[in-house]
């Protein structure tokens, strides 16, 4: 087993034990982001992805995904010095909960992305489609992440997509949340660019979009 795989496995175990000091100790041994040797990114993101997949498949529970994200987010923020920007300014990310008044999904996606070194603009919850379009256009985000809990809200993502298209904007809309998870075709129906079935997937989605889009 490679060194990286061993550390990732140890990290998953420590996260599921809610062992923050153990997580801190494991991460202290790594370098922040890119370069030679295992970096934070090489283990934190895979560990969160593994826990996210385990949740989808019924092996761990949502609260463990939440706690793992929270612990990683804090540990990574402690390790990265505030005066040193982690990544470039792009991609610029915005996140919101459309219509609903339940922000846990958004919170978890934020934790995962921040643990991977991204910064996000948080547009809050209970937002109307038009409001979101205006905010995303104003800030010129590259990716707009939308979390929904209710089916009726999820369906209104199509209004956000239409609003952005009408403005000629290339902003990529990425969706997630219970209705998208339990109804596999819904994301396509509402015209989203991508869907994440657990919070950690947001990182891989943003990365793969970044490879295809002319942001960097």
């Amino acid at each position, binding site marked *: 087993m490679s060194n990286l795989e061993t550390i990732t496995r140890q990290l998953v175990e420590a996260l599921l034990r809610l062992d923050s000091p153990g997580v801190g100790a494991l991460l202290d041994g790594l370098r922040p982001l890119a370069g030679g040797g295992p970096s934070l990114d090489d283990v934190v993101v895979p560990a969160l992805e593994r826990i996210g997949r385990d949740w989808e498949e*019924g092996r761990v529970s*949502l609260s463990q995904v939440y706690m793992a994200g929270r612990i990683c987010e804090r540990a990574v923020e402690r390790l990265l010095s505030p005066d040193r920007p982690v990544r470039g300014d792009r991609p610029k990310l915005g996140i919101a909960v459309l*219509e609903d008044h339940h922000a846990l999904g958004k919170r978890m996606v934020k934790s995962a992305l921040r643990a991977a070194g991204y910064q996000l603009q948080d547009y809050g919850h209970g937002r109307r489609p038009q409001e979101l379009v205006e905010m995303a256009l104003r800030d010129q985000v590259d990716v707009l992440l939308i979390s929904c809990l*209710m089916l*009726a809200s999820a369906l209104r993502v199509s209004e956000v997509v239409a609003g952005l298209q009408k403005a000629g904007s290339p902003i990529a809309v990425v969706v997630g949340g219970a209705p998208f998870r339990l109804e596999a075709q819904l994301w396509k129906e509402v015209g989203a660019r991508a869907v994440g079935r657990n919070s950690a997937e947001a990182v891989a989605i943003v990365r793969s979009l970044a490879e295809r889009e002319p942001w960097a």
Partner: protein
Amino acid sequence: MGMTSSQRLQETMQHREPDRVPYSLPANMHPARDMGLTIKEYFSRPEYVVEGQLRLRKKFGNDMLCCYPFAGLEIMAWGGEAVYFDQGPPNAGAPVIKRPEDILALEPPSVEENPALRGVLEATASLKAAVGDDIPIAGVIVSPFSLPIMQMGFEAYLDLIYERPELLERLLRINGEYCVAWAKAQIKAGASAIVYSDPASSPTILPREIVLRHGLPTARSIIARIGGGVMIHLASGRGKDLVDDIAETGAVGMSASAEEDLGQLKAACRGKLTLVGNLNALAMRRWTPQQAEAEVKRAIAQAGPGGGFVLSDNHGEIPFLVEDEVLMAMVEAVERWGRYPLDWVVVDGA
């Protein structure tokens, strides 16, 4: 003469085969559309809900009726508000517990005097007067352990569970007082059983250890105090790993998630718990009548033999946007495939 809905449900809950598989298609917002009302208007008057339930019975033949409008109602009872939408159920608005310490001064609302809850009790009583003993009416409570998700917001509640166990215990006791009074009042008004909505006790949401420490002990004590038939609903969360623990709470039934194998779940529940489920409510909007029939047939084949099964959706609520045509196809499919004995089902190993 065939059985009444009450007899059919009684029989299946004794783990015997009635005349056909009982079913409930809780399209509880659909009547608003037929009656030319918005969802908000529809839920604003007990008489609308009574008429709506009678219409659902007439149209779809549901074996169980229910006057409980939506979970956000509980938050109205605790002094908060509901946020309404045109095309779907209302949500609970801002949390009523703003800081964990608020729990120290929290008092349960009185059930009988609460306008929001009184409407449900009135509706239940007049529906009972209309249907008598032939059709059972389900009461609903959101469990003491799941209620805090709305009372304080999910994130704050998870932090409380992990970091403030003493406040959690206190909150569970306060909520327990309220939940028992609320369930008893619904039974007194005419409900014949209580659906105990407790997705926080699903391993989809919280780990088994925490559920066994807090969720199910709470359920056990509340069920004993309610003193009527109680079914534990995990609101589409998984439950297979908890079957024996749920059976020990004194519950007579549990929900079946669409994310689990219904046949395996049935094998675990046989003789112990009646299963209710497991059609994927969110997928129904896209089903053709043929798919609806195939899904009903699948569920009956997996869980129907031997009784102990009520066909329903996985969540206890069919989305407003599901077409009547699809619901009608399900009703016809139960008629076609749900008559006992289920001769067409090939039982494994037989």
